[in-house]
């Protein structure tokens, strides 16, 4: 894997790794006695492993083949495997925290194992670990294919991928030590946030430089979505995480914003993490892998334009629907609600565009579980965006907010849309990436599909029931005009649904395990098979290609 790097590139990569290791040493030294010191050791351990991997093939000869005649797929391969490993970890932890809500004694009486500390390991594990790695890996693949150009640099993609995973590891280990900003989906502390900015800038540079080398005048729609993902996530991340550390030798920091302004900023971030992390990039996947797999062109170019700019423009306004009936000024709540409802138009335009693309290929959907993953993902995307717009309406939100209905909605999107499109893409991508004829076992793909679908449906129905029951119990009045149920009674009523939810999660996790196994078996046991015409058009890829004239 490292042997496709030249000696110069390997030493450059080693230098970067050692620099980061040095940073870890500094953290461990100055942060002695503070959690940040422990985080320093995590950095040291992580970079040491990377360093050892590099050293093992340090003296290998330079690659002899003409590298510009092929795409650079090694980082994508590693990224896909890492994404699946994070899927198993993140969903496994998810199953654990879900079980803790049904059986609260399912923890070892330790400080690190309480629900509050483990839950962000689940959310970050699946969103950033699984989702983020899947996004980075597929974007590497798609930007090269749709540009018909190789990436401009061999070290930069590794830096982005490994650097991002360092962030994920710092984050997850930190939560267990009690390091958190408490900002939902932005829990990591200031030093991790700064590191992510560095990685993200590198990612943006890599993307732009690859696009600059393209042998295709037009930038394909999947790339618009990946670009929006990279750019807007950067803005959201930086603004939401503005904070002052209590000390440069400690992990703790205090948010620059307080109270109502902080609430708006956090949900501006939170909802657009959904928009630009969990939607935009995955739509990029959908726009590339679905038409590829179906063998049909995208149904409508114009719908793509409409939905893209609609999503970019409308989504940003929607965050305040998380704060209905709170101390946030009414006008902001109303704006958020209005734009959330309007958001349905571009969302359904995307989902419709995807489903219409399948016209003429529905027999493939029937036979091919990989394409079915993508089709069902598009359906869940349509369903959960409709549900989202509906729940953003103030009186509906009055019932749903603070209940499990929100959790169910999130998981309809996260499991039904994000995870299914990722799994579908991974199954479509794996044979191409490793030059294999097909997946090791199509039956396992089929099994994974039904496990994932049934898990999602059980999960979502359980949470709809529990959420709506809970919301109604909170507001039910008895004949005497007083509240009929105590909070405790509403909580006891949740128990059967929490058990059902854990079961749904178990099925979904089992599917992810089958997927990881299947990908590994494909890599190890399937015969080689080179796809036709999967190489950059211009062999002089070292020079930036001039986009063809009109």
């Amino acid at each position, binding site marked *: 894997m490292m042997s496709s790097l030249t000696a110069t590139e390997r030493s450059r990569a080693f230098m970067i790794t050692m620099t980061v290791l040095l940073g870890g040493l500094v953290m461990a030294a100055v942060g002695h006695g503070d959690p940040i010191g422990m985080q320093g050791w995590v950095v040291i351990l992580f970079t040491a492993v990377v360093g050892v991997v590099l050293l093992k093939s340090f003296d290998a000869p330079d690659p002899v083949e003409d590298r510009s005649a092929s795409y650079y797929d090694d980082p994508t391969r590693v990224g896909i495997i890492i994404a699946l490993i994070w899927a198993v970890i993140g969903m496994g932890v998810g199953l654990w925290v879900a079980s803790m809500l049904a059986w609260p004694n399912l923890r070892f009486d330790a400080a690190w194992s309480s629900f509050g500390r483990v839950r962000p390991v689940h959310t970050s594990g699946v969103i950033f670990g699984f989702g983020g790695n899947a996004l980075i890996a597929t974007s590497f693949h798609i930007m090269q294919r749709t540009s018909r150009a190789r990436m401009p640099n061999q070290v930069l993609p590794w830096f982005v991928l490994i650097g991002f995973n360092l962030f994920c590891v710092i984050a997850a280990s930190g939560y267990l030590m009690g390091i958190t900003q408490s900002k939902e989906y932005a829990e990591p502390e200031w030093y991790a946030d700064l590191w992510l900015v560095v990685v993200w800038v590198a990612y943006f540079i890599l993307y732009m430089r690859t696009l600059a080398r393209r042998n295709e005048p037009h930038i394909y729609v999947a790339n618009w979505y990946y670009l929006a993902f990279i*750019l807007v996530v950067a803005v959201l991340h930086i603004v939401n995480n503005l904070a002052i550390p209590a000390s440069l030798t400690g992990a*703790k920091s205090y948010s620059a914003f307080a109270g109502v*302004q902080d*609430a708006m900023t956090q949900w501006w971030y939170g909802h657009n993490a959904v928009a630009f992390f969990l939607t935009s990039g995955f739509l990029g996947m959908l726009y590339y892998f679905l038409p590829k797999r179906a063998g049909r062109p995208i149904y409508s170019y114009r719908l793509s334009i409409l939905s893209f700019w609609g999503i970019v423009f409308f989504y940003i306004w929607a965050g305040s629907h998380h704060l209905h009936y709170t101390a946030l000024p009414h006008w902001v709540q109303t704006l958020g609600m209005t734009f959330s409802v309007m958001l349905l138009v571009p969302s359904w335009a995307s989902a419709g565009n995807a489903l219409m693309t399948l016209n003429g290929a529905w027999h493939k959907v029937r036979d091919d579980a990989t394409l079915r993953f993508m089709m069902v993902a598009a359906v869940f995307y349509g369903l959960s965006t409709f549900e989202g717009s509906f729940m953003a309406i103030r009186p509906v939100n009055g019932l749903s907010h603070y209940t499990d209905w929100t959790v169910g909605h999130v998981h309809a999107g996260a499991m039904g849309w994000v995870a299914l499109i990722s799994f579908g893409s991974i199954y479509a991508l794996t044979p191409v990436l490793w030059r294999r004829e097909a997946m090791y076992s199509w039956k396992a793909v089929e099994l994974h599909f039904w496990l994932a679908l049934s898990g999602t449906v059980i999960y979502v129905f359980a949470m709809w029931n529990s959420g709506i029951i809970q919301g109604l119990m909170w507001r039910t009045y008895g004949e005497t005009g007083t509240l009929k149920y105590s909070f405790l009674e509403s909580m006891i009523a949740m128990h059967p649904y929490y058990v059902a939810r854990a079961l749904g999660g178990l099925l979904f996790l089992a599917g992810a395990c089958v997927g990881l196994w299947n990908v590994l078996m494909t890599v190890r046991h399937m015969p080689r098979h080179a796809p036709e015409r999967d190489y950059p058009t211009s062999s002089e890829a070292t020079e930036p290609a001039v986009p063809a004239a009109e």
Partner: protein
Amino acid sequence: MLRRLLKPFARFFEFHARTHYRAERHSMALTVGIILAAGVGGFVEIAPLFTIADTVEDAPDMRVYTPLEQAGRDIYIREGCYACHSQMIRTLRDEVERYGPYSLAVESKYDHPMLWGSKRTGPDLARVGNKYSDDWQVRHLMNPRALVPQSVMPQYAFLQDAPLITADLPDRLAALRAVGVPYSDEMIANAGVDALAQARPDSAEAGGVFERYGDETAVRTFDGRTDRVTEMDALVAYLQVLGNLTDLPDAIQPEVEE
């Protein structure tokens, strides 16, 4: 009729598609377009919250957290309590009857970050202060199911054995002042001493806590343990002050009539 109404939109759409066909050949055009399109909403919704004066009410009696309470708040964050408990009572009748007067923006104006929460696996805590005794809070945190058999809350017995670290409290208060909480030099300098004194009512330094944070401040042995000040002291001190930083909500919201 419909056709005539839609015609301008169709024309705009046509124009947009054609422009886009040209623009999508330039990665910088897309970059700038995305930043601009995504920038508008956030700017319009967030910036005015800092400039419109009546976004946050005036409450002259609103006080800052004492160092012990702030330390408790940091523990509340560290343990992820916000994942299951909200601190925001909405303007809905059942919430006001269940939890008390609805939350005002001013009540969290010194909260960096805010802990309004998004999920109530457990009840709202915005006004939990003084609702239960210290003893109840401690025993509940030690083992929730001893008091509420059906509870699914994790037990936090280890807090009772963890001595409170006060060395970094001056730094923490200074950082909070940097982001806008009006701590005085004196408060910052005495943060460590005040934190310990607030849990030691008989100590000589207890007077300083009243002096700096007001006579209403609760100075007592929160965890029932007099030999040392623990993280349990801090967390309970924080829980007991929730909803009691200002009297404004009670003053402007009359009791709900039966």
